[in-house]
């Protein structure tokens, strides 16, 4: 296919559909779990499952799945999470209504001795609530979906998640207890706080949100003023479920902006960084940009064209402070579509034109690095695909196309209630 003659809509459809197929391919029909990556032996990621659950309604609306199929996939997933063991034992699936970051694809128990992840649980729960909001028909299956979605959300003990601190901790482990650090600075945790504040059973204290936002920094970078966060995914993940256009909390009221506009400005800074390309990485320019949390070539040092280059593995790459090893996260670039459609599409076409081997399958890898020689112009390319990348593409492209997820979640009571408790006003609220 010659991408230059493909309409924007067709191009978007092609990449969105290919991204969605990940959830069909990496899915365990017994539990509904979805693998973190397409690599052999990868465990499930609970956040990826959340993205999958939110993607099934998209697939129904796009006629990629029948409603019955989507509902069946959803139900098996919710039943798994409802019935899986919750407790302090090290091989449980979760505790206090939260879940371990990674689960064994077959047994559904804690994998890799990972942490009980509060943010990844929040992304899972956002997907659960999306399912509850979408499957509203009065059939046995959809009734059970709604009931389980509500029950899973209400079971979560958000108060416990603060430990003895005002803000939510980043994780918990059976042997070590809470991580002794919380969220510092703007991050993807908005959805966590919104869901936690709205909990009918174990809500976060209203002041917890203020305690978190007290760490925000409003910066003028490259003549662009924004609430700073380096990696792109931070400016995207909560926006999958919340249409922040026109919504303002105390911080944004003070700054005369909103979080949607902020994400647009973050993209502006990303593009400007790529244009300036301070480290002289291959490929970077205004049409080829996007630093985020993604896979990388691995920790190594290589002398390339007389310059000693340091590469990283999976890392939260960001601008302008780094880390930056020349690895671009193309999924994060494409998922910027709702905020900056012209620029995101321009970048996608650039990827297709310059790196056709990388984009041939219409599915974007977690990372590629033209500076580190590979077999083609794209240089090093991450092996396989990552579920988070495919999920954010499906969902953000859908928000750009139809606003489906945003509209669904406007009518999801915890979202509105949580936003209000966090002090948001305006917009659709």
């Amino acid at each position: 296919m010659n991408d230059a003659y493909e309409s924007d809509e067709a191009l978007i459809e092609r990449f969105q559909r290919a991204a969605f197929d990940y959830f069909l391919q990496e899915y365990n029909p017994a539990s509904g779990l979805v693998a973190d990556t397409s690599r052999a032996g990868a465990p499930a990621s609970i956040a990826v499952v959340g993205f999958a659950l939110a993607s099934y309604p998209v697939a129904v609306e796009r006629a990629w799945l029948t409603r019955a199929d989507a509902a069946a996939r959803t139900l098996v997933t919710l039943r798994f999470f409802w019935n899986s063991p919750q407790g302090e034992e090290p091989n449980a699936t979760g505790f206090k209504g939260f879940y371990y970051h990674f689960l064994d694809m077959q047994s559904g128990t804690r994998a890799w001795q990972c942490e009980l992840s509060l943010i990844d649980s929040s992304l899972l729960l956002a997907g659960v609530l999306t399912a509850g909001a979408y499957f509203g028909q009065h059939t046995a299956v959809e009734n059970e979906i709604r009931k389980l979605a509500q029950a899973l959300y209400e079971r979560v003990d958000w108060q416990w998640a603060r430990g003895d601190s005002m803000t939510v901790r980043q994780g918990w482990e059976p042997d070590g207890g809470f991580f002794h650090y919380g969220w510092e600075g703007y991050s993807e945790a908005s959805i966590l706080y919104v869901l936690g504040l709205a909990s009918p059973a174990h809500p976060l204290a209203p002041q917890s949100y203020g305690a978190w936002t007290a760490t925000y920094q409003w910066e003028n970078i490259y003549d662009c003023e924004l609430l700073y966060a380096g990696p792109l995914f931070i400016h995207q993940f909560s926006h999958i479920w919340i249409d922040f256009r026109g919504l303002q909390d105390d911080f944004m009221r003070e700054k005369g902006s909103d979080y949607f506009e902020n994400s647009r400005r973050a993209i502006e800074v990303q593009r400007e960084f790529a244009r300036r390309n301070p480290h002289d990485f291959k490929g970077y320019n205004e049409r080829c940009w996007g630093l985020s949390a993604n896979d990388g070539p691995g920790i190594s040092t290589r002398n390339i064209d007389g310059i000693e280059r340091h590469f990283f593995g999976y890392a939260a790459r960001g601008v302008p402070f780094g880390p930056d090893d020349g690895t671009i996260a193309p999924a994060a670039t494409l998922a910027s579509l709702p905020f900056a459609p012209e620029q995101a599409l321009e970048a996608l076409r650039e990827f297709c034109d310059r790196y056709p081997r990388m984009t041939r399958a219409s599915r974007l890898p977690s990372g590629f690095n033209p500076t580190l020689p590979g077999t083609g112009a794209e240089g090093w390319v991450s092996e396989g695909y990552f579920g988070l990348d495919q999920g954010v593409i499906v969902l953000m492209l859908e928000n750009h196309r139809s606003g489906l997820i945003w509209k669904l979640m406007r009518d999801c009571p915890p979202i509105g209630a949580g936003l209000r408790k966090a002090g948001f006003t305006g917009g659709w609220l």
Partner: protein
Amino acid sequence: MRLKRELLENVHPASWRNPEPCGAYDLVILGAGPAGLLAAHGAAILGVKVALIERDLLGGNRLNFGCVPSKALIRTSRLYARMRDAPELGVPHPSGVQTDVRADMQRIQRIQTRLSRNDSAERLRATGVDVFFGAASFIGPALVSVAGTVLRFKKALIATGAHPLAPTIAGLAEAGYWTNENVFSLDALPARLLVIGGGPLGCELAQAFCRLGSRVIIAQDEPTFLPGEERDAAQILSDSLARDGIDIHLNTQVVAVHREGAQKRADLLSDDHRMSVHVDEILAGIGRAPNVEGLGLESAKVEYDRVSGIRVNDYLQTTNARIYAAGDVCLAHKFAHVADATARMVLHNALLRGRRKLSALTVPWCTYTDPEIAHVGLYVREAREQGIPVKTFTILMHDVDRAVTDGDEDGFLKIHIKEGTDRILGATIVARRAGEMINELSLAMSAGIGLGELGHVIHTYPTQSDAVKMAADAYYRTRLKHTSA
């Protein structure tokens, strides 16, 4: 050997005889570190009767165990790093580069000796200061005893400094470890070094020893280095340490140390993940505790705490109104320049009936890693906690021409202003010479000069401090945007 002799002759002469006390002193100073020496010289200039008591070495931590030796070592280690990175500046790798830790230590001693001449016991005596060596202890509200002699005073200044905190780690004391008090007199470089603590001292020395050739592991019981500093600054430092080749363990505690023959095994715990590392030496740099023990503070009715030190009011008076304190013994900011500044305040308040306030000080500080991390004033978080709306102007060093030509592009300048004004609330600089650059912003803050005004100051071009001008220009552009909007 000659240098060692001269150094000791300056900082604690073997043949020194304490003078006979002459009635009541206008000022008795306990401790001859930066604060004590500054106060002693100042009091002598004012022509008052002043006694200075030191239990160990004149010059205190700054000259003997802290700033001076560590910065000398850092200078050497930076040169090694520059030679390592020479190709980045178009220079082939120098051949035959070898480290020589004995030569490095000799250089440190040479520098200490030279600087000790400024504050030698003999020179102090010549300026009119009665210098007493010995452990000082208050024996009453206006009496202090030293080496069997009782001194009466009208005013006193406690400036006894601080000492390295000893980590409470099972087996560490038995296995032996270094602190900044004994790390600058080495005969050989350890092949493998574990640094405990990711604060300023730990980071500086971890980087220095790594660049000198040790394989360094650093364990920090926090998610970032330099807790309290800007998150981005800590991240850049972490990246820099990693590039140097330091094995970084954040969120990691050292829970036990065992001696195994000539080496030491340290057990590390990160959340619930355990691992062991084998090293030749361990350096602890987890902070410093005030020297308040054995001073007879109860007899003088001076309240204190073993962690936070001597309690002082905003005028640096202790709970005994005639006794003041300055420097590390009473302050959270344990820096030589703060000791110096607070000693000046005490001179003013104690001897000249001044009313200078601690809370009015603008205090910059710097961690001398590469890049350096310097800060002055409020952090954004602190300003927001005070209800002050903040805007930050950020300039990346990779946009500063001189930083680019120097190959010093890692870092940034952030200036925090009160929203709607150009009042500078604070600033953080991450740059190879951040410690030099921060002084312009300290001056601006102290003098009440706004960011807009700094834009009118012509900065020499090209310099790295041009970043300040660029921030001011960015500020002006926002003003122009608002005007034209």
